[in-house]
């Protein structure tokens, strides 16, 4: 299922990039930090179609990265969605870890932890809350149509995902089919969320056993 492959990969990449950045923002204190936080929070509202256009302009054959030949591939869709949801992961994880850091700051200082170690410790301790952060990113990625339709092109059997198929059926006037596909997509999202929830419950139980 291409929808899941693209959006889960994008979520994984966004977490890989976003969680350390979020933790670093939670730990670090520097000039302009507040302005940066406002900026990151604002970027959560990035319009998907604008991200799509920016990625299109870079990956287009006449763009700077055109030689890679990535436009209209699943990779281009993953790149666009990663850019779209990384700010969400950074901003939300920063908030979660900021609160956690307030509790632990004293302890970190007494243990003489370096900034890198503190970042790692925070992410590890906040891992259950951060799962929800990941899910928020995944939800945004799997539901958006604006970015993937521009960089993917909605090519049958190649880059057509659930949301672009829904847009296509809507434009054909086949509203029942469009709605049916929507239900399938929501079921998939539900399944992913249930799996993550199950994982969390099992992990917590194991941790306390």
């Amino acid at each position, binding site marked *: 299922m291409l929808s899941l492959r693209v959006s889960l*990969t994008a979520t994984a*990449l966004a977490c890989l*990039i976003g969680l*350390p950045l979020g933790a670093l923002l939670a730990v670090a204190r520097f000039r302009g930090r507040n302005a940066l936080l406002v900026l990151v929070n604002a970027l959560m509202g990035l319009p998907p179609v604008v991200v799509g256009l920016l990625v299109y302009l870079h990956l*287009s*054959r*006449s*763009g700077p990265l*055109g030689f*890679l*030949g*990535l*436009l*209209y*591939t*699943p*990779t281009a869709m*993953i*790149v666009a969605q990663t850019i779209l949801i990384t700010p969400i992961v950074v901003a939300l994880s920063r908030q979660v870890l900021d609160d956690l850091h307030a509790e632990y700051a004293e302890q970190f200082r007494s243990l003489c932890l370096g900034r890198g170690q503190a970042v790692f410790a925070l992410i590890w301790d906040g891992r259950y809350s951060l799962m929800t952060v990941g899910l928020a990113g995944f939800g945004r990625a799997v539901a958006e149509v604006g970015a993937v339709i521009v960089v993917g*092109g*909605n*090519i*049958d059997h*190649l880059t057509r995902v659930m949301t672009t198929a829904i847009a*296509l059926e*809507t*434009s*054909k*006037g*086949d*509203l029942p089919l469009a709605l049916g596909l929507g239900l399938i997509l929501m079921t998939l999202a539900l399944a992913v969320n249930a799996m993550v929830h199950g994982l969390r419950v099992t992990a917590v139980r194991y941790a306390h056993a």
Partner: protein
Amino acid sequence: MKRAVAFWALTLALGTIGSAYGQGASILVQSTTSTANSGLYDHLLPEFEREEGIRVDVVAVGTGQAIRNARNCDGDVLLVHAKDQEVAFVADGMGVERFDLMYNDFVLVGPVSDPAGISGMADAQEALKRVAEAEKPFASRGDASGTHSAEMALWADAGVNPMAASGAWYRETGSGMGATLNTAVGMEAYALTDRATWVSFANKADFEILVEGDEDLVNQYGVILVNPRRCPSVDAAAGQAFVDWLLSEDGQSVIAEFRVDGQQLFFPNAQD
């Protein structure tokens, strides 16, 4: 910095996996939406792929956007329906040569109640003039597509400037044909559409064709190979094979065979 490098390395790795997908030759067609939404490609492409062993991927957007994408070299073949723009595309050196491929016609659709009373009129411009005088809602694509260009030409012939009523009775959706038809049905507005999209459109409600048959409503499709001299990424051999096949007796008869609800939607005319 390290992170950025790692990110791009990962992207590149994924890209290599992505491009390893397509075995054998494949080409990308930048296309208008009507040929895709009506199901023509689903009928046409398997036939070509079987005969020539070349896979064809289609990006279906409005004619205006398809041409823009092709100008950026993002495609091997252009299949659209706005002759002036196509001729300009070739004249600018972006295309090798333009060929007539097939035609059908535009129709004016609207609610059965027909508040402007245009049903059965033979003259499309007169019908539009009447809609404007009655100030009844008209849904326009408003997106520089082929259908939108044709509509604007009809308004100009009719001596009406609909843009003066933009937001009042003249409503530009700025979206594709299907989306515009959905909107028109939703607000009981007249609309100009190509017949192929209309016949295969499933959400007609109480809408029907009100004006058809005017020779000014002919809708000509053209096909162009993107110039490999301007765009080195173009697979000229495979792209040319596709164009040649479309224009051949074989391709033309496959186009003529295509039916929706027993109705022929595209009339090949490459060999006229």
